[in-house]
């Protein structure tokens, strides 16, 4: 069960994601963005941060990083990829996930604790989340306002690709269409979300709900391995 956490120049949640993955029992390592080899990782995490400074549009440069070719090949092989915050932005820019992430409706960086409804539990990223449970974790981003045209949103919802939605009491923090906080690709192997599960990794930090996602991921890989 190897987890590779990609480090772009400007990633700043790489070590946080590494720590949380290790806490969930994974054999996790950092992977520099200039390599084209995932070093045998069974799952890849694209962490939060400001890859390449995000001076253009969040994630717009990172999708050209050499590692992204390997990530794409990994996805084509059916491998698991989790994009958190900037990682989600990179995945949408790379067209590995549908939608775009626009600037927050407030036009400001927003750091808040939010509550997430988990819309789909039959994914490798969420199967450990108890039914009906809402999850608490922080958001910290300037561009997390999820958008797709209405027709596409209808199709996305119909296909069950909306995995996380912002919900009460705090509600939608950034103006995202239909309060969408995270989505999954059509094959159910690539998931991205703006909130930070790796920061909700210990009760002393305010919540350990995020560990349910990290454990889902790590233990899914174990199941795949056993099945194989």
């Amino acid at each position, binding site marked *: 069960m190897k987890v590779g956490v990609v480090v772009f*120049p400007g990633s700043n949640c790489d070590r946080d994601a590494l*720590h949380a993955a290790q806490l969930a029992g994974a054999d996790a390592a950092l992977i520099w963005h200039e390599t084209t080899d995932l070093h045998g990782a069974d799952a890849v995490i694209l962490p939060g941060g400001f890859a*390449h*400074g995000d*001076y253009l549009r969040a994630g717009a440069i990172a999708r050209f990083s050499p590692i992204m070719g390997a990530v794409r090949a990994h996805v084509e092989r059916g491998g698991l990829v989790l994009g958190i915050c900037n990682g989600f932005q990179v995945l949408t820019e790379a067209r590995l996930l549908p939608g775009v992430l626009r600037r927050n409706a407030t036009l400001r960086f927003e*750091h808040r604790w939010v509550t997430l409804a988990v819309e789909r539990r039959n994914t490798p990223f969420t199967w450990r989340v108890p039914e009906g449970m809402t999850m608490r974790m922080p958001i*910290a981003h300037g561009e997390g306002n999820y958008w797709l045209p209405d027709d596409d949103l209808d199709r996305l919802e119909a296909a069950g690709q909306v995995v996380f939605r912002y919900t009460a009491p705090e509600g939608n923090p950034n103006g995202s269409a239909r309060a969408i906080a995270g989505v999954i690709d059509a094959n159910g192997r690539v998931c991205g979300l703006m909130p930070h599960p790796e920061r909700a990794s210990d009760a002393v930090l305010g919540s350990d709900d995020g560990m349910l996602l990290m454990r889902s991921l790590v233990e899914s890989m174990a199941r795949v391995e056993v099945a194989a």
Partner: protein
Amino acid sequence: MTLVEEPLVQTPLHRRLGLTDAELTAIHQRLSRAPNDLELAMFSVMWSEHCSYKSSKSLLRTLPTAGTDVLAGPGENAGVVAIGDGLAVAFKIESHNHPSAVEPYQGAATGVGGILRDIVAMGARPVALLDALKFGWPDDHRTRRLVDGVVRGVGGYGNCVGVPTVGGELTFDPTYTGNPLVNVMCAGILTVGGISRAIAPTPGSMAVLFGSHTGRDGIGGASVLASANFDDGSAAMRPSVQIGDPFAGKLLIEATLELVEGGLVEGMQDLGAAGLTCATSEVAARGGTGIRLDLRSVPLREADMAPFEIMISESQERMLAIVEPAHVDEVLRVVSHWGLRGVVVGEITADGDVVVVDGETELARIPARALAIDVPEQLHEAAPPTRRRLAPAPGETPLAHDGLPERGMDPGAVLEALLGHPNLGSRAWVTTQYDQTVGTDTIEGCEHAAAVLRIKGTKRALVIATDSQPFVALYDPAQAAALAVAECARNVSVTGARPLGLTNCLNFGDPNKLDAYWQLSESVRGLGETAAALGIPVTGGNVSLYNESPLGRIAPTAQIGIVGVIDDVDDLVRPQFATSGDIVVLLGETGPGMAGSAYERLAGAAPDDRPPSLDIAREAALHELLRVAAADRVLKSAQDVSSGGLAVAIAECAIWSGLGAELQLQVAMAPAVSLFGESPSRAIVTIDERNWNSLARLASSRRVAARRLGVVGGDRLRIRLVGVGATGAAEERGAGVADELDMSLDVLRRAWTQALPRVLGKVA
């Protein structure tokens, strides 16, 4: 070479660079000849107030700096104290006031970048930022623009580099209208053996400059911006403001830490004020060496830069590493891995001189010590202003006050007004723009008085607070500094932590003015005496003078930052109420003195009223009591009583927890003093009923008063006033004071929540 546009009447170059005639003479003496223009420019930035502390050095020498845990003190890039488990914390606070006044976003952003590099240069990974911001009253649109720009700048840099902003202060006062204050504090973690120093100890070693290229931004920032008063020509100073690139900053942090951790460097110095001149002369002066610097090898943004521009540029995101020749290749490899340019720009020499060459041509030669150490101090005269009101000495019988402005007071309405005041209300409008949780160590972020960060791999947690008392300082600067130290240490102690070290940022006016220098010298005295009495070593800091504008001088502002450690994070005590039915206890005695309080600024005070006095022994006893009670797991919550007094402290505990309280308060002097007075050495704690005897015993053995006020619960805050002064019995008061404060938590929470949006505009 033209340094400054030629005016009609020729002013000598040294004066145009801010050097006095006496300083020019001193330069002649140190060189035994006349300096050339480049040398003069180098002297002007190094002998500026900002770099040399020439006006404050004699005062700063009086501060207590020794401590058993201190690993690095003043004079280094940052102070370092040991925290146990083989780890240490590097921390420092610095100002970026004048750049922020001129260009708020870049000024604040580069303030964050600068303090981060100071911490990183010590070999520490930054784990926390705190920012203490002071602005004019927000009804002025220019002030709102400043607030917005500074907040975006602090966030823009800190969020991007991935260091959480976990605390600070936000204060509005008309004295800051023309001259806002941006003080940024940073703390980082390192191993005890992993300290890196800003030193060039070995002749023959190489000086490697890495990071961003050198450009024309920030030319003369130290001498032009930071060392002169402000006037309407400030806009013309904009080219003196540096431009920050947080992405490059992040890469620089990672590269620097990899170099230090790999043992590849002998010394490390960041380039901040005075750029290459400062970095080269300081590492050489500390090492007793010299340095030969070739300008041809410095990577430039613009090809036609003059030597003086290269030497004093304050371009951001640059670092100077001192490297043994054998390690140079490896250093350059690490730097280039992080996408940064690194070049050998010079060699360490034995002759003690900073020598600037262009190929074979020698352009300047100055003893490193003359630039960095042997700076003529400026002695100033101090005289108190005619109008001042000093706090009574401890034990002095205070004036029995009739509390004039409380005539007909409705305590509930006053509490609502105080909570809704921009200086006391929720700072969420600002702090939601800061990433507070990156790093996954934040236990307490910006919400409360002290930030708490766990230290992974240990049971320990860092506790950090920053405080100031500018309003008391308008009356009695020494007392204000003393109160700020006491409050800051109290904020650390209420969590159960032990304060380990103190850093300070002294923001004052023009030291050439008698009363401004008096404010500075008094503040340093109050700071030093109190830190010494509490046993907290001062490990460094920063002095910002000339904080004056045509609108006047700022309130004297000694910004204090204290770092503490809690050995077992399970002992951490938080400020909000915990459980219905818990007993609310006031620790410490309430004393008189409303001058400088939030209440005074809202409602006024008697014209001869004074600031509260501080009994340092009582303060220390309270801190020890709080730590012992925390370690014994007696406390359910603990909150410091400070701005807004007891009523505001209790209201915050209630708002933060959603639990009300039913209390009774003995009023000895006047209701306003008991409810809203800001006398120090007090805390509000809650305990389980069965722990009352333990707490009472712990308190009485330390001679700290402990009074039961009532119980936690319900959705209202009710404080019934009883005792001789309860309703304001004195005849001359006229209408009596309501004898009960009874407010719904919803009303109080709304006032507190809306305090900033009401004046700064809404954020959804």
